[in-house]
């Protein structure tokens, strides 16, 4: 048991930190935020070509680096901290797990190399109309015709839905739900509408399918695979939220240590100091919860149930800890934090948005509640609980 990062992982994190600091500074962030840009293809190529980030967790056989979920979470923490806007999270955090865990061999062979190379961006349209993840294909129906499968229905709140080259979604069929893939450049009957977003660094879209040609890509292991994939996506999202916490912590502490009011740095006032301490507590605890889940996910022996439970616990905690932290950040920053110019509000919006991207914290808490209901009693006989 060594619940710690390896030397390589520390180096990787440090490299990412300095890369994003150097390449994704305030100016580039401003450009995205002020001009509503979705993402910068040049920067995307840098992330993909120079650092091979999108293929981080893709198997080497498929052209990736064969990294673990722990590696992915290290990446996403730093990526989230830098508030980068790009298809990286949708592609590597959502679509890749779906493809890898629930896709059949053919589709994996076909798509993983393209995605790992950065040539193809992807997303997974996962939310149902109530805002909870839809693994039963309620919102989209798939029909098999002479020319193959077509989809009808719609998905809302699709991350990078307007730009992704490949779009995955679960659709219902008479034989049960399956995972389907749509090539957005060529598909007929596909409408993709970019929507205003609370978080200007997350590009969302409405996607409507009208007899849209699609490939059914889920193999036999799909039902379990989809649950695993959703759990992995949820853990990846928590790593993004962790980035938000990490950024908020540094920003709050740095401001509290330098801003002078009443003749003292405000961080010397207990009210401010204790807020900063709370942000630290939230950040540190979230970090080890996220990486605990990532370590579970990186272990092939972990079953789908255990992974799902970890994902729900992690998500429920990260949603509340990150919101507390960004709220504390804004209170520490005072007036300056409410200006558009200052990046503080971006963390606030990110934390708010992330807590809704893969189901609300109530959704996750209710899932935890079901786990508690199913747990055996501790009381009768000590041997039983061993």
């Amino acid at each position: 048991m060594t619940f710690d990062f390896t030397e390589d992982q520390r180096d990787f994190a440090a490299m990412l930190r300095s890369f994003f600091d150097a390449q994704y500074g305030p100016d580039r962030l401003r450009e995205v935020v002020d001009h509503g840009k979705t993402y910068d293809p040049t920067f995307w190529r840098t992330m993909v070509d120079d650092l091979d980030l999108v293929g981080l967790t893709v198997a080497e056989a498929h052209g990736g680096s064969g990294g673990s979920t722990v590696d992915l979470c290290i990446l996403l923490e730093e990526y989230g901290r830098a508030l980068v806007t790009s298809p990286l999270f949708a592609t590597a955090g959502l679509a890749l797990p779906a493809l890898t865990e629930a896709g059949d061999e053919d589709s994996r062979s076909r798509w993983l190399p393209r995605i790992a190379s950065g040539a193809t961006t992807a997303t997974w349209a996962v939310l149902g109309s109530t805002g909870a993840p839809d693994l039963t294909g309620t919102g989209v129906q798939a029909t098999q015709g002479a020319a193959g499968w077509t989809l009808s229905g719609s998905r809302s709140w699709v991350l990078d839905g307007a730009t992704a080259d490949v779009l995955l979604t679960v659709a219902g069929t008479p034989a049960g739900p399956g995972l389907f893939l749509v090539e957005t450049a060529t598909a007929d009957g596909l409408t993709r509408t970019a929507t205003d977003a609370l978080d200007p660094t997350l590009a969302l879209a409405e996607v409507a399918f009208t007899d849209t040609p699609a490939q059914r890509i889920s193999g036999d292991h799909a039902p379990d695979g989809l649950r695993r994939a959703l759990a992995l996506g949820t853990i990846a999202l928590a790593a993004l939220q962790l980035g938000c916490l990490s950024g908020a912590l540094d920003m709050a502490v740095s401001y509290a240590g330098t801003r002078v009011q009443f003749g003292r740095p405000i961080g010397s006032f207990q009210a401010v100091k204790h807020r900063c301490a709370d942000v630290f507590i939230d950040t540190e605890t979230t970090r080890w919860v996220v990486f605990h889940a990532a370590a579970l996910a990186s272990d092939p022996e972990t079953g789908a149930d255990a992974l799902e439970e970890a994902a729900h616990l992690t998500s429920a905690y990260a949603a509340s800890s990150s919101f507390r932290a960004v709220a504390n950040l804004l209170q520490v920053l005072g007036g300056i934090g409410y200006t558009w110019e200052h990046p503080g509000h971006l963390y606030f919006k990110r934390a708010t948005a992330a807590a809704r991207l893969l189901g609300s914290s109530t959704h996750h808490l209710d899932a935890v509640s079901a786990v508690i209901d199913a747990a055996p009693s501790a009381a009768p006989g000590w041997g039983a609980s061993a």
Partner: protein
Amino acid sequence: MDIKLSDAAEQYRARVRSLLAQELPADWRGIAALSPEEREQFDRTWREFLVEQSLLAPGWPSEYGGGGLDITSHSVVAEEFARAGVPQHVLLTDPVGMTLLGPTVLHWGTEAQKQYFIPRTLSAEIRWAQGYSEPEAGSDLFGVRTRAVLDGDEWVVNGSKIWQTAGAHANWIFALVRTDPEAPKAKGLSFLLIPYDQPGVEVRAIKTMDGGAELAEVFFDNARTSADNLVGGAGNGAKVALTLLGFERGSGGIALALATKLELLRLRDAMRSFGVDDVTLRRRLADCWTSVHVMHCLALRNLTVAASGRPPGPESSISKVMMSEYRKRVTELAVDILGPRALTPTGMPSKVNLGPQPLGVDADSSTAWVADFLHARPGTVYGGSSEIQRNTIGEQVLGLPREPRPVPATKAG
């Protein structure tokens, strides 16, 4: 202990209601339901109507164009306006003029100042911005550095002020400035009125986190104003400023509690519209309703104290803390009710930044709810942060000892 208004006040309420019924169209749904064009036209005639009826500043003495009403009747006006969904203040600068500057000049000003500034504030010839905060002195009200030096019969002002609500729509600013750099911190301040229209004043809009630009920053570079434009006497600025903050409360509390209750009904309607029916959300809504009741009780109490002529105590910090913390709570509930809809706001935009939306905003406008969610955040910072309010209560009400001051000369601790 009588919580009912007097018969006279209730009769006055009936008068206001019938006045509103005459003035407003039959299909009136609230100011926020108007289209931008309708709104523009409405605002013009509505402000004229208010001035004519002496309802723009109901509590000011009638000799200066006010309504001459006592605070209870003033409160009734505000309440009925909120209930009808019509604005009491029309221009973006009106709240500053009517609730801050006007009462201050009426209380502290010379007769000449009253004669000059009060009618022009009512007519909107003069539109006010508030100038307290500075970039380096946010919560530290008396740490201001903007300086004014008398040069003949004019003050020459250098420095800057920040966080002016509607500051870009104003043409005068009242500012707390340091007129005596030798005096101790709070003693060297004065309250000065400064016109925008001169080369030494520059106004820059501040874009805020919600994407709007209602706030401004004002820079003074040898700006000049007449020596006559100092209110309350040189060195008296801290006292004037504190009275002014006291004016913020009293007449508007009951109307605000009502507006806050109407907002909760809109939130309930939003739940129905979205088909959201969750026990936890319902209980949080009920908890908010309870808080609104608390604020209503506090408002009644504050009105009683104000009507008695007693000076507002630092207990008014309670209302500030309660309301600003409440606005965070209710808007967090709103985005939780929105659920994923909060991610991609759609629908009618919000109409006001500093409180509940007026009647006429669609219940299912996620754009308006999300805007309210963002607008609520700075509430615990501006106008004295929650930390400052709690210090005030702890020290001035409860008599708890102050913190040790840092040793000024050398670096402390």
